[in-house]
């Protein structure tokens, strides 16, 4: 798929996410917009995965876990548009009787979701378990996991960091959505995680930085680099310097857009910046 086509998908996914959140009158737009390009790169160009029939065990394919589950609006849109479930279903996001729960869940059996996430800090450990399972099964595919930078406040993240390095989980590629924003404000003011790259290196991870986290060629390039470094005894971390709210000017870098729906006027302003590039759901 060409870069232009990927960019077209990314633009539509941003629009999908804002429309889903507005329809539900709730959700987390800032992080969803910020991680969209990475989701699109993974699912439409980088990972070897099988949307149908969806298999929970992920055997014989790459697996992705979204540990910062609250940004799932964009992830759901990417899953739908890559064939995991009907695009039409996106309109049920956060509504009663939906498979698209407010935070990712397996109970409703939404294809593409392998573990519930939302309570932060847990997805990295689960991804490590899947990666260990792949090793035991001699499955050469990779496990990808995204975690938030605010999520790195959780102690479990650092337990997992120790464990993955100690057990040489080198088929695991983690990505930190480093937008320096969390609910209460700037990460440097709420609970500083700097210097983040040094921390992961010190914990024994092969650590890469992705400064152009909204450039599809740059994302694909760092993902390829990560794969080339896998299998060498170290888990891999990509610190992706994303912009929260990317694509909607008034949401960009504003922590107040962590977890609320736009109002009617803001919604129109946002959609004006996100024209449909594919068919809307």
């Amino acid at each position, binding site marked *: 798929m060409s870069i232009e086509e990927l960019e077209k998908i990314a633009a539509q996914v941003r629009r999908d996410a804002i429309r889903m959140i507005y329809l539900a009158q709730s959700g987390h737009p800032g992080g969803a917009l910020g991680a969209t390009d990475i989701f699109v790169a993974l699912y439409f160009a980088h990972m070897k995965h099988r949307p149908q029939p969806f298999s929970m065990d992920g055997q014989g394919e790459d697996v992705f876990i979204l540990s910062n589950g609250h940004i799932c609006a964009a992830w759901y849109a990417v899953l739908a548009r890559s064939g995991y479930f009907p695009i039409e279903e996106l309109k049920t996001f956060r509504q009663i009787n939906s498979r698209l729960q407010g935070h990712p869940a397996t109970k409703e059996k939404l294809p593409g979701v392998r573990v519930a996430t*939302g309570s932060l800090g847990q997805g990295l450990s689960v991804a490590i378990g899947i990666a260990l399972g792949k090793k035991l099964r001699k499955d050469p595919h990779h496990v990808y996991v995204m975690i938030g930078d605010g999520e790195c406040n959780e102690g479990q993240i650092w337990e997992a960091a120790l464990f993955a390095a100690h057990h040489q989980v080198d088929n695991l590629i983690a990505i930190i959505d480093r937008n320096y924003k969390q609910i209460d404000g700037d990460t440097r003011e709420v609970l500083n995680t700097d210097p983040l790259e040094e921390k992961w290196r010190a914990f024994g991870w092969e650590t890469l930085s992705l400064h152009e986290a909204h450039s599809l060629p740059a994302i694909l390039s760092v993902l390829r680099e990560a794969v080339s470094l896998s299998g060498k005894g170290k888990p891999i971390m990509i610190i992706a310097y994303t912009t929260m709210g990317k694509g909607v000017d008034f949401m960009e870098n504003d922590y107040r857009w962590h977890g609320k729906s736009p109002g009617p006027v803001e919604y129109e302003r946002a959609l004006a910046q996100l024209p449909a590039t594919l068919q809307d759901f």
Partner: protein
Amino acid sequence: MRPRFVDSGAKDTRSGFGAGLVEAAQKDSRIVALAADLTASVKMDAFAKQFPERFFQAGVSEANMIGVAAGLATVGFIPFVGTFANFATGRVYDQIRQSVCYSGKNVKIAASHAGLTLGEDGATHQMLEDIGLMRGLPGMTVISPCDYNQTRLATLAAAQWEGPVYLRFGRPPVPNFTPVDDPTFEIGKIQVLLPGSDGVIFATGHMVWHALQAAYALESKGLFIAVINVHTLKPIDEMGIVEWLERTPVIVTAEEHQVHNGLGDIISHLATKYRPRFVERVAVQDTFGESGKPDELLQKYGLTASHIIAAVERALKRQDR
């Protein structure tokens, strides 16, 4: 004549788990295990030695251990995680709730050193709230076997059971009195150890032995009190228990757990649902424990055969009123 259960030689229930785990793993290559720096204490060392490639040392990182287990279960393995009951439940409640139960992962949580009988380490380690925590979780199965032989069987059964299991056992040697391959043990079914028409004691875990001793002592006074082993606290054998609530108004529960949220609450709940009865509870009375020898602690906190006898007598008096 009622059966006479005899102690074939005291053994710790945790060793029953260790033996069951190795046996289960020999039969099923999907079984893997994780420990949190307590491998030998939880009796997982034999497994670790026999199946080094299927054993993962998590260090003192219980939250991560639960998550890694959930990941291994996602791929189709059957992970057993082992640590002390406190660190296996309260410390990682949210990880069990979200990554295991809500996510429907086939993870087995093996919790050793449960209850007061952990002994000298004191209240920091004497977990008495775990049954309540675990049985409140949708999808969780909770098993509290009564002796070494039954803990081995429960481990084998848990390995074959589909879905999350909380398996509770203890530290000190305790009487081993059930048959080696007891054919009557089945997850979710009560065991009527002693029949009786004058009352019933529902007991779980280490307290089953004490309940038997209480019943035998009362027999010499001409009272025939039934003893029911409620080894599975969830799913609870509703119909099996209700049958006994119908039979007699003299109801006693005995558990090495807080008086809240455990077996006493389960039986009381069934009584209010099907057959209103007073329930006398032998349990820890909403307090923390302390350092001491297991028997001293059971005595001080009211968990011995004589405390059960006193509870039966209270129930009988209440019936007379």
